[in-house]
């Protein structure tokens, strides 16, 4: 869609987040750069521990603490987020950037009625009367498809099902009409039929209000369904980014191949064996030197001991960036397993050892 809008809503440049722990410094996010334009859905994909949630939370200052170390910049409509004071951030939260968290049970307060929670959030960010805020809360709840919204305002979170709770979270996030929505695994805890409904709501939001959306997920199906651009993260780094089609039909990084290969799908042949990625993601405390994917990559060679930069490597595809030393010409051949994209398995499957 609007891949290079004149001035992006959000511009993240060289973001690094580290946490000092007893065991050493954890580099949770290690050099992430991307932009989000208005009306654009950018998906951040990766496995647990890849730094995708930390990236999203850092934008709203939710990872700040005595042991957190930040580097790089994130500019939202001209305002720098990383060094911003608490007050500045508070002004941006709500109508500027809003967030939907993964687990609606633990992010709603169980002892307050959901109506009061939505109203509180509206009144923190805007000067409106309680009655006006109530009306807005009803309107938002109706908009996200909660039936009998007026009555349900008086319900407590435990009286809602998982899907309904997630709708309440979304209603809350949308109640100040944010220009950027951060959605951290918004559908992971939900059933597929409910997931489809929530994704529809997000599409409507994007169309109606032109909001930008950052969607953090591990589900490539959801990505293919809703995203315009995709960022693939592995062990704290962006290993590849590009348009939806770049990632699905012309992926450049072996980790992306592996991800695409290892998903079970309802539309492909039921091959006897899934081309899985061998091994496990590295511990964030003991990340390997050079490319982080190197120990699991069957195509690794000497050069992989150096960290590849995230850059354009295909002259004819300006939207695609990746961090892989393999020659572009070889990738087309290496990524095909059978008739699908996948990652070749190592010659002999190693056992996971101590």
């Amino acid at each position, binding site marked *: 869609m609007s891949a290079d809008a004149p001035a992006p809503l959000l511009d993240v440049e060289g973001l690094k987040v580290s946490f000092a722990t007893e065991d050493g410094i954890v580099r949770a996010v290690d050099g992430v750069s991307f932009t989000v334009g208005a009306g654009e859905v950018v998906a951040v994909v990766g496995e647990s521990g890849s730094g995708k949630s930390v990236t999203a939370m850092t934008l709203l200052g939710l990872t700040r603490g005595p042991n957190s170390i930040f580097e790089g910049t994130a500019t939202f409509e001209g305002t720098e987020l990383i060094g911003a004071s608490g007050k500045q951030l508070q002004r941006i939260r709500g109508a500027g950037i809003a967030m939907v968290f993964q687990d609606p049970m633990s992010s709603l307060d169980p002892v307050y009625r959901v109506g009061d929670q939505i109203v509180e959030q509206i009144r923190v960010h805007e000067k409106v009367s309680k009655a006006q805020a109530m009306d807005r809360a009803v309107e938002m709840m109706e908009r996200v498809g909660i039936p009998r919204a007026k009555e349900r305002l008086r319900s407590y979170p435990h009286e809602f099902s*998982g899907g*309904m709770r997630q709708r309440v979270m979304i209603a809350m996030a949308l109640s100040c009409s944010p220009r950027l929505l951060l959605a951290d695994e918004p559908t992971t805890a939900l059933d*597929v*039929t409910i997931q489809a409904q929530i994704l529809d709501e997000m599409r409507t939001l994007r169309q109606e209000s032109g909001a930008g959306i950052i969607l953090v997920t591990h589900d490539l199906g959801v990505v293919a369904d809703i995203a315009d651009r995709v960022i693939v993260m592995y062990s704290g780094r962006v290993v590849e980014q590009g348009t939806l089609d770049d990632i699905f039909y012309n992926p450049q990084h072996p980790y992306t191949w592996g991800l695409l*290969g290892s998903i079970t799908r*309802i539309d492909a042949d*039921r091959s006897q064996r899934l081309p899985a*990625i061998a091994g*496990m993601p590295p511990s964030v405390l003991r990340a390997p030197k050079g490319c982080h994917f190197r120990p699991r990559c069957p195509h690794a060679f000497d050069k992989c001991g150096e960290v590849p930069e995230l850059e354009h490597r295909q002259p004819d595809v300006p939207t695609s960036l990746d961090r892989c030393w393999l020659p572009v010409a070889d990738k087309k051949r290496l990524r095909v397993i059978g008739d699908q994209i996948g990652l070749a398995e190592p010659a002999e499957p190693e056992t996971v050892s101590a």
Partner: protein
Amino acid sequence: MTESGDGGVQEPQEQEPTAPPADEATVAPAAPAAADQAIAADARTNGDRQVLLDVDHLQVYFPIKAGVIIDRQIGQVHAVDDVSFDLLEGETLGVVGESGCGKTTLIRALVRLIEPTSGSVRFDGADITKLGRKQMEPIRRQMQMVFQDPQASLNPRKRIGQILATPLQIRGVARNQIQQEAGTLLDRVGLAQDVVNRFPHEFSGGQRQRIGIARALAVNPKLVLLDEPVSALDVSIQAQVINLLDELQHELSLSYVFVAHDLSVVRHVSDRIVVMYLGKLMEVSPAEELYTKPIHPYTTALLSAIPIPDPNQNRSRERVVVSGEPPNPINPPSGCRFHTRCPRASEICRTSEPPLTEYAAGHLAACHHPQNVTESEIAASTRSDQSSRSSGSETPDLSPGTGLQSTPVSAPATAA
């Protein structure tokens, strides 16, 4: 698998429903079981493969109680409501459905971790629903379970060696052999033998699930019940565990019941699939056919809700988004349980529960308005004896305008 004397353990006695006194508080409000039990023969065969597990009109209801001093039962949750199916030796049966549809309750009832309210489960020809604890022991050795959350299902204070030693002792492995056997098991599930001295928290989710699988295999089971074994894992690790389960099945000729909410995972592993909704079976089908030719509108809705990880296909396909959420299982809808959300529902769906009807070999669905079936298939269809007792005898509606169609995966636009 040879030493424990297989199924020979308890064939003779248990035919009458004379409940053994031990822990049998399950005499149902409605227990019409006995009479037509005889239909299910002892060890039915299907082709040349033996029926390993025969589930017959199984019901699990949970009472809801109220009252301060005296507990009154004010209702019940219809978790599993009159479900019948069978599992052949060496087969993988997938069980899918949304959360709350009763799939977990179902497989727990199969091993009697939850006592069934009525109905019977036959394992290797013998009814195990009425066995006492002692009598269940040898059966439990043959049916093992792998749980969803590998973190919660391994004792955090025991070392891996200890976790595996207990089932090995139960199997009767000599004390001095246990360490070696544990090593073999770990090797089999792709873990190094030297992990025996570690604690569960030292492992990642995928490795813990491997340990859970090793523990299940320790007693040489015939049947492994897998309750969402991969849904807590990352995709790349999911693929590893699925591949492992596949290899183990071939090497050890295991049978699986594989419960999951993810239809694409289930498709990959299963030979046959049952689709559940609010405690009832909606469709039973050979795996591939369920995806190319779903008969029940609920199956279509489920399939259509799965986003396909392929942008072009996603753009081009037509999707049916069912509105609403599954109704409350305390008070399930009358007639067909799906009628409140079904785009094809008509009057008959509200009043009469459709029976499970067999359309093609092994492909059954409980629906008044089946899709993807031809008129001749409907004409030749028969009411299956796996149908719920509460269901009517109506064959599907053949009247015009009900939109019989034979197009693959696509339901009518939700016009209304």
